[in-house]
């Protein structure tokens, strides 16, 4: 089986960044408080990135630009709805449950809308989701009159955003759990397999009788659901939700996905890579912040990182480096392709 060079690179970066952070900050970077602080920052952007990855896998230019707008709309709409029925501090459990379900429902609805427009009317995803992004933002502005909506810190909700289990932030656990479930789903269900096959070759999928429209709609709906979940976590962390929160997340989410080695043409992507990639990006930006460098340096570092990952993916650099190492070279059997070339050459010589 081919080595997943992105996964390997991400793991190396993960260890290197943690180690480097520990060294330059006298261990402060590895303090439990900083680790927790970084872990609470990952989920919202990570969930959006998983959504982008899924739709990218559908192929045919699949992308979701409406993620953060959908997340904000979920928080705003569900917040206004839940607040009008329950007092957040008198009935914290009921309020939290209503709010959480509301976020998911709004997110899912937004995703379904994207999916239906793209699959039924064959609209290019980038145009469709650009339109819905503006639509979601607009609806959130109208609902909230452009002001932030105060959700407050009722018991259960604030635990989702700021609580810990065995020292690990709950929001981070939820994020990893979501990643695991989706990873399993993609690998072992018929939907997951067909999604990748369809992304790899839409024409073949058509002739094989795949219900492409249904797969596309489902995928965008899941992406929307993840955005709704991100909206819930944003609200739980920040007390307030607002329509213009995280306007820079859109491009960061795409950056994470590309770093994770997801094929922009569709058909290939691994959730574990996206999760790791989101964590690595967080480590990098926290580290630069720790050293006291400007945020522009962070943008520059992200750009360099992105180009490195593209180069690794394009030229399979990692395998080349491993192959050129003089020591510890393991005996590798020639691949089928190499054997065939070898045999052909041999036959020609004969």
């Amino acid at each position, binding site marked *: 089986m081919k080595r997943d060079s992105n996964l390997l690179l991400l793991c190396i970066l993960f260890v290197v960044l943690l180690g480097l952070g520990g*060294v*330059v*900050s*006298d261990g*402060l970077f590895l*303090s439990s*408080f*900083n680790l927790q*602080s*970084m872990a*609470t*920052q990952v989920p919202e952007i990570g969930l959006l990135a998983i959504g982008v990855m899924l739709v990218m896998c559908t192929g045919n230019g699949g992308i979701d630009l409406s993620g953060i707008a959908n997340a904000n709309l979920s928080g705003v709409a569900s917040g206004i709805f839940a607040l009008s029925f329950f007092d957040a501090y008198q009935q914290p459990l009921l309020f939290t449950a209503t709010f959480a379900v509301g976020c998911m429902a709004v997110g899912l609805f937004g995703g379904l809308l994207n999916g239906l427009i793209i699959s039924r009317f064959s609209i290019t995803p980038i145009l469709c989701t650009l339109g819905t992004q503006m639509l979601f933002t607009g609806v959130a502005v109208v609902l909230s*009159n*452009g002001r*932030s909506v*105060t959700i407050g*810190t009722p018991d259960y909700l604030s635990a989702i*955003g*700021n609580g810990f289990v065995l020292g690990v932030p709950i929001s981070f656990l939820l994020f990893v759990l979501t990643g695991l479930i989706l990873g399993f789903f993609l690998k072992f269900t018929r939907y997951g397999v067909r999604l990748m096959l369809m992304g790899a070759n839409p024409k073949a999928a058509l002739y094989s009788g795949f219900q492409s429209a249904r797969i596309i709609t489902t995928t965008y709906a899941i992406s929307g659901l993840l955005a709704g979940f991100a909206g819930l976590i944003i609200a739980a*962390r*920040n*007390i*307030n939700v*607002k329509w*213009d*929160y*995280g*306007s*820079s*997340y859109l491009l960061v989410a795409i950056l994470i996905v590309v770093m994770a080695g997801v094929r922009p043409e569709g058909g290939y992507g691994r959730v574990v890579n996206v999760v790791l990639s989101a964590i690595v990006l967080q480590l990098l*930006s*926290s580290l630069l*912040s*720790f*050293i*006291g460098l*400007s*945020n*522009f340096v*962070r*943008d520059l570092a992200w750009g360099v990182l992105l180009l490195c990952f593209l180069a690794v993916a394009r030229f399979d650099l990692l395998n080349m480096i491993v192959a050129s190492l003089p020591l510890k070279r393991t005996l590798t059997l020639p691949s089928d392709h190499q054997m065939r070339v070898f045999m052909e050459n041999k036959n020609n010589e004969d």
Partner: protein
Amino acid sequence: MKTKHLFLKKKIIATIVASVLGVASQGAFASGETITTVVKISGIPWFDRMETGVDLYAEKHPEINISQVGPSAADSAQQLQIIQNLIARGTDALAIVPMDPSILEGVLKRAMDRGVIVVTHEADNQVNTMANIEAFDNAEYGTALNERLAQCMGGEGKWSTFVGSLGSRTHMQWVGAGEENAAKYSGMELVDANNESFDDANGTYETAKEILRKHPDIKGFQTSAGNDVLGVGRAIEEAGLKGKVCLVGTGLPNPSAAYLDSGAITAIGFWDPQKAGMAMNEVARIFLDGGELTDGMSLGVEGYENVSVRPGPGGGKLVVGNGMVIVDKDTYKARLF
């Protein structure tokens, strides 16, 4: 031979580690207390000017590590992350100009729970802060702008007002106070009040042209958002009404310079972010030393010599200075930024 190599290798590694640690402890992790100023966006003139104040303050207090940081894009989520990283890094005091006060409530509360000193600026509705610093009282500022306008108009004639948007609380306070002040002069007549500019110089230019056509005898404008003076100034200049129509509003010296020189803008009002940055750091230092804020105290910064200290919306204090600056053609060069 082999052992020597190993020894050499160890020595090299030790040197690298030592130098990295050296750099780190020289810079970000020096002993002593830290005050970090977090602005809305880095690299724009307003906050570059604020940084000059932070640097000046740092020179005066070499015992404290003082610096300024800010997000590279105007996004409250990015500012939130920077603050979170600063708290994890062990910063003792934060002086923040919130992009969006409501979004920062959660993180600021957690910071204060951890014992971090939090001081804010331009956020008089911030609940979770120990002190919010305002350069001036909004009503007094509006009154002062209008008084300058009335002086130019000779206390009579038609005048109009611009606000960034009707939802902008401070802008409405400024023009509201201006209207009250204008009531003193029986000859001043307000027409087509509260035009929305959306801080867009081109849009303001079009609106101002319409108003000039509709009221050929108009004598004055009072504007609020930073780009309004530019739009209205251009309309006045192109209509050949320089010196005949008065224009007083919020603006910055550098962009307004040409119109001030030509006479299209009568005077601009603003507060100096340099002084605000110094005042924030001074308040943070007072808190770090365990001091308290008292009404009428001096922060040792121009415009903040006699601050009014009131209870804020949360448990913190609202500190109001007298840092308004109103300059015209003759005086703006001393404040150029």
